[in-house]
């Protein structure tokens, strides 16, 4: 009976992963990352319910906290890049290379 939840989680995760890979806009990439994190949260909660303990739910809270922190730092970085380069495309921010 948990199969649909896991399937939904897998679909959401894949959508997020593909989004990260193919989208250039940093904000969209960022949202895709969030989507992947939440897909993971969904599986964690599903497994917690299946096993009948709280550990998965605790882990989900941790993920949320980390995601929140990430949003704070990440959005700030994106903002700064957009301000200096007038672009939010991740492909334009390719200075850090060989």
């Amino acid at each position, binding site marked *: 009976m948990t199969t649909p939840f896991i399937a939904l989680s897998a679909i959401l995760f894949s959508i997020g992963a593909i989004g*990260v*890979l193919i989208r250039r806009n940093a904000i969209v990439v960022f949202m895709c990352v969030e989507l992947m994190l939440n897909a993971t949260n969904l599986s964690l909660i599903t497994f917690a319910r299946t096993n009948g303990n709280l550990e998965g739910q605790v882990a989900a809270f941790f993920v949320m906290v980390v995601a929140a922190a990430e949003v704070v730092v990440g959005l700030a970085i994106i903002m700064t890049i957009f301000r200096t380069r007038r672009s939010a495309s*991740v*492909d334009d921010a*390719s200075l850090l*290379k*060989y």
Partner: protein
Amino acid sequence: MLNSLSVLSSQSPVVAPQGAGDMTIPLILVLALPAAGAAILLLGGRRTDRFGHLVGTAAALGSFVCALVLFFNLLGQPADSRAIQVDLWTWFSAGRWQVELGLLYDQLSALFLLLITGVGSLIHVYSIGYMAHDDRRRRFFAYLNLFVAAMLMLVLASDFVGLFLGWEGVGLASYLLIGFWQHKPTAAAAQKKAFVINRVGDIGLSLGISLILATFGTTSFAQVSELAHEANTGVLTAIGLLLLLAACGKSAQFPLQTWLLDAMEGPTPVSALIHAATMVTAGVYLIVRSNFIFDLAPDARSAVVAVGTITLLMGAAIGCAKDDIKKVLAGSTMSQIGYMIMASGLGTVGYAFAIFHLLTHGFFKANMFLGAGSVMHGTNDDVDMRHYGALRKAMPVTFLTFAMGYLAIIGFPGFSGFWSKDKIIEAALGENLLVGICAIIGAAVTGFYMTRLMLMTFFTKPRWEEDVHPHESPKVMTVPLIVLAALSVLGGLLLINDWIVKFLAPVVGEVHEHHPPIPAVAVSVIAVLVVAVGVALAWFLVGKKDVPREAPEDVSPFVTLARNEFFADAFNDEVIAQPGLKMIKGLHAFDDGVVDGAVMGGASAVGGLAEVSRKLQNGFVRSYALSLVGGAVLVLLALLVVNL
């Protein structure tokens, strides 16, 4: 370390054998005087420029006096206890081997001592005049003294390694003196060539000493001669052949003969002392000294005879074709040493005669070389005989003394060369008819080329260069010539009563009575007759005609062959030097490309790999994400595969 020194000094380093009396001191002095002379003149530098030649000459004369003292003391001893051995100190040791640095004064070294110091002193005196205008005269005398010391070490050493010390010492002195006029490229090339070819011979001496050490565990002449009969013939033959190789190098014998003619680049007194009278005869000394080995190795002796015979003919042929007076004499030296080597290869019957001829040759060849030097002195250092002619009137003393040497070398009856060469021919005929005949032919050719030299130089019409005014040399040069001329005439006295044979017998063994196929008198007559033919031939070919000032170009192939010294240099150059240099070039490419290339290649490979792989770091965050996903998928697949 110093403790060991004190231990050493507590042993008495000099062991005076019984019967030697007080001869240790003159024996050491004979060696030490010229060595000290060389050291003073070399280390003293320009400060000794003014009196350097006097110091050098005094050292040589002092050494000669010591040699005389030793010799007369030796004559006073009974025949069987004449050898004096002085052990100076242990040179080196390893395991059971111990090599002593010692001096051995016996009948053989006694004669050499007199020759080296006697002729050496005369040549020192002569050089005072000959080198008077050279601003490096002091250094010349230093080198001459060094040579005398080394040559004395060679003949006084009591074992093979000590002999090697002298052997290389004379090689060094010869190197320094051939290239004395180093600013001339030809002289610099000649000095190197002489040393290098001598080193080829040294291969023989090094390996020979190694084989002696491996076989006998000692290199002392006394011990090896005692033990020699215990070794098997194969080993002795090998030692003999190795020593022969050494002798070929030092004595300019085939196939290592090519350096001697080039060595004439040195000042003429050097040619007289080193490249005629003494150093080049060291090979003969080595073979005679090692008689205990050669006596037991007949195959090695045959090789010695073969080498000697080939060289005596080769040298004579070269002597016929050269126009450079010193090169004619050098070819002649090769040829005469060929006689000695051949005689020493004949075994006991020949050793004493080899030494006898060595002594007389030392006299007359030194005489003629110095005579040639005197001629050059009077003709602005021209060496081309085609520019001489009719010099007998201009330089009478030189002419007369040279004539004595000439008569001696062609074997004119009564002169020293007659006695010594005659004995060798006689011994050769007794051993092997073919060798004997070669020796006789050699005598005839000697008669031809020496007469040619005499005629072209002192007779015929003058062909002098325009600014040349031939004049007699100063007294300081002519007096040594006169002394040497006297010795060239009287050298045969050594054979009275077979004195030299009996004198040397304790060292080289008794000569057993042998009967030549033809009686001795007949041999002498034949020898004189063939020489007469050679002389007559020279008279008709050279003396009766006008000598052209330029050497004729259209000559027979034989003359071309002899003029080019049998193309030995060309052969060495084409077969050894050029391919060798090509190989070295190849080796350098190999070293850079392959050996170092492997190392540097490894380094560049790492660098190249890094160059390629860092391209992956392209700065696009999405490609990093893709590789993350790819990695995750790979891990997933791997897990699946493992689980299955």
